[in-house]
């Protein structure tokens, strides 16, 4: 709010009063604005300090760390010694899947090291993201359309739909862990003997099913909010003009709900790219369900600096995806509210 104090008074004389009167009046005004601006920035300072401490400092510190070598062992004493500067070696190691060799230099990471899992973890992360977000969008849309109708017990349905979203992810993961156990409900119910957490594709589907179950309500609610913004008259007019249900959906609902839908998809995509607790608890990352975040957490216990490099890489990947969404797919998270605000004025 405080930031608006500066620009708004500047605009009003420019647009309102005649240019002749503006010049002399502007001098006093400028001083007032200036002192106001200074006052405002001092008021803002505590917030900036707080943001600096909790956001900027950790990020910079992590980036600085990512250019340091991890502590190595001094063979004589058996104690760790600081690693010194690494340049971009940590980044190169991750991207090229290289590990330190005993004789110095690097070799391709053997199976059973975190370094050898970077690209498979990246692929797994994107696979989970694409599949879960697609399923959640379709199911969420369907649920939103149902919830948007007026019927008896609508509020009950809305509340019930929220339940999976309200349960903490760790608890959800543990629930599904029991469901997918060999002696669990899933196998009992379908009379199967699938090793859900014991082989690759069942394990991946177990994670996807649990994630879709958990986050579809979030999707549904965001889309529902978008649906309720569409005025009923538009539909009535379309009906009068003889548009079919499919035409109304394709030509009215979809375009009008698109801003809300894109924001929902963007949020879910960024969330899914960071997926950690569900696969970590459900499968422990076994059978190719290790996501980038799991890799980061595991690496933290083996060496901070290398983990800092990996989390910076993860951050860049997620940032790029978000950028593509905002820039090319029209997910206007930032500008939309300002634009509509101005339009109303």
């Amino acid at each position: 709010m405080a930031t608006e104090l500066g620009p708004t008074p500047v605009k009003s004389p420019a647009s309102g009063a005649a240019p002749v009167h503006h010049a002399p009046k502007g001098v006093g005004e400028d001083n007032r604005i200036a002192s106001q601006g200074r006052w405002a920035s001092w008021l803002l300072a505590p917030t900036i300090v707080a943001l600096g401490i909790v956001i900027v400092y950790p990020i910079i510190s992590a980036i600085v760390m990512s250019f340091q070598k991890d502590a190595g062992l001094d063979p004589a004493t058996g104690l760790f010694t600081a690693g010194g500067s690494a340049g971009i070696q940590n980044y190169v190691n991750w991207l090229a899947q290289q590990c330190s060799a005993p004789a110095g230099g690097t070799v391709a990471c053997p199976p059973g090291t975190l370094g050898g899992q970077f690209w498979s973890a990246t692929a797994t992360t994107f696979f989970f993201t694409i599949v879960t977000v697609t399923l959640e969008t379709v199911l969420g849309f369907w649920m939103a359309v149902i919830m948007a109708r007026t019927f008896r017990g609508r509020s009950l349905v809305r509340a019930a739909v929220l339940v999976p979203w309200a349960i903490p992810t760790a608890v959800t993961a543990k629930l599904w862990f029991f469901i997918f156990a060999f002696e669990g409900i899933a196998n009992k119910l379908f009379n199967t003997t699938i090793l859900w957490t014991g082989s690759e594709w069942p394990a991946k589907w177990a994670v996807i099913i649990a994630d879709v179950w958990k986050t579809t309500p979030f999707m549904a609610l965001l889309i529902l909010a978008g649906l309720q913004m569409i005025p009923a008259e538009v539909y009535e007019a379309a009906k009068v003009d003889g548009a079919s249900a499919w035409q109304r959906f394709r030509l009215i609902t979809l375009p009008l709900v698109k801003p809300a839908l894109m924001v929902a998809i963007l949020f879910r995509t960024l969330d899914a790219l960071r997926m950690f607790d569900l696969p970590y608890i459900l499968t422990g990352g076994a059978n190719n369900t290790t996501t980038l975040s799991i890799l980061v957490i595991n690496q933290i216990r083996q060496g901070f600096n290398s983990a800092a490099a990996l989390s910076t890489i993860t951050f860049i990947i997620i940032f790029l995806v978000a950028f593509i969404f905002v820039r090319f797919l029209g997910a206007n998270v930032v500008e939309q509210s300002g634009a509509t605000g101005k339009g109303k004025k």
Partner: protein
Amino acid sequence: MKTPRFLLPAATAGILALTLSACGGGGGGTTGGGGSDADANLDGRGPITYVQGKDNSNVVRPLIDKWNAAHPNEKVTFKEQTDQADQQHDDLVQHFQAKQSDYDVVDVDVVWTAEFAAKGWLQPLKDKMAIDTSAMLKPTVDSATYKGTLYAAPQTSDGGILYYRKDLVPTPPKTWDEMMSMCSIAKQNNIGCYAGQFSKYEGLTVNASEAINSAGGSVLDKDGKPSVNTAEAKAGLGNLAKAYADGNIPKEAITYKEEDSRQAFQSGKLLFLRNWPYAFNLITTEGSSAVKDKTGLAALPGKSGPGASSLGGHNLATSVYSKNKATALDFMKFMTSAETEKFYATQGSLAPVLGSLYEDQELVAKLPYLPVLKTSIENAVPRPVTPFYPAVTKAIQDNAYSAIKGEKTVDAALSDMQNAIQSAGAGS
């Protein structure tokens, strides 16, 4: 015009942040040695803090009350962590890394001891700080020793034991081959033969190391170098892979952790089970148990005699940053005394490290598995004592998992394991 004015507070903020980062002392730099810290405050006496994971069976508080009553000037405060091992580990790392003196005596899992010692965070227990370990079972002392120096006082221990169906198997098998030959009995009764914990997690490291050690191999040699590319290690891991391929280890065992395997045995679906002693009470007393009176206990089967169990348990260590190390030492001695160990065993079912207690009639009456457990611990090999434990355990888990499932040959898996452990130690 507006920008510079705006910059002033921003610059203030920036300077503040820089000052703060200077106070933080740079995140990543772990300086080894700690030589000066290890020599300081050896005679310090005064109040100290004891740090341990969640005290589920309420054994720590009564002991600390007892200590505090006797030492009014050297009171111990109990700092209780969560019950998650990973979180306990990370909490300790954060405090040590910041060189904080507020954690005096800490409870460390056997597998963290080498890592913390190599970081220079643990007070070497020698000279003035020496403790007497002669009455303790040797493998437990080994688990607290890094590069020939004792860094922690063994406090509780744990070893794997073999649960078997005594109604179906009259005498328990002594060797792995003998056990495999008894699997026909399981087939006749239409149940699984043997299971341990083969899901890809820490339990698999325990089981795979046991298989390798029991066959006469080892994961790391005396110098801490990997040694899994040997005929013995191949025979050991090969035993598990072959049993899984044969069906002697049921297919679902690849998803088993401790509790799943216990439930499978408890519902009568297994002839043999490798598990920790904790399962005994549950198997023999839980209402749902189908094998209450049909469960026998034996040492793990090995190549020609008892197998080599992996060791669990916890050690007590003093932080090098502690201000009151003399008090800390006395408290460690108190916490590892025979009396305390007995209290731990009766109240918390935690296995003692003192050999004599395993013959204590009163204890054996309460915990009937003690004699078997003693054999297990006496023959045990600590899990690899290495400061790179997280990387080593990952190398073992990933490759053993592939080998057992048959995705890789045992030879390929062990050669990958060898390389992965080597690269873990080479990281510098």
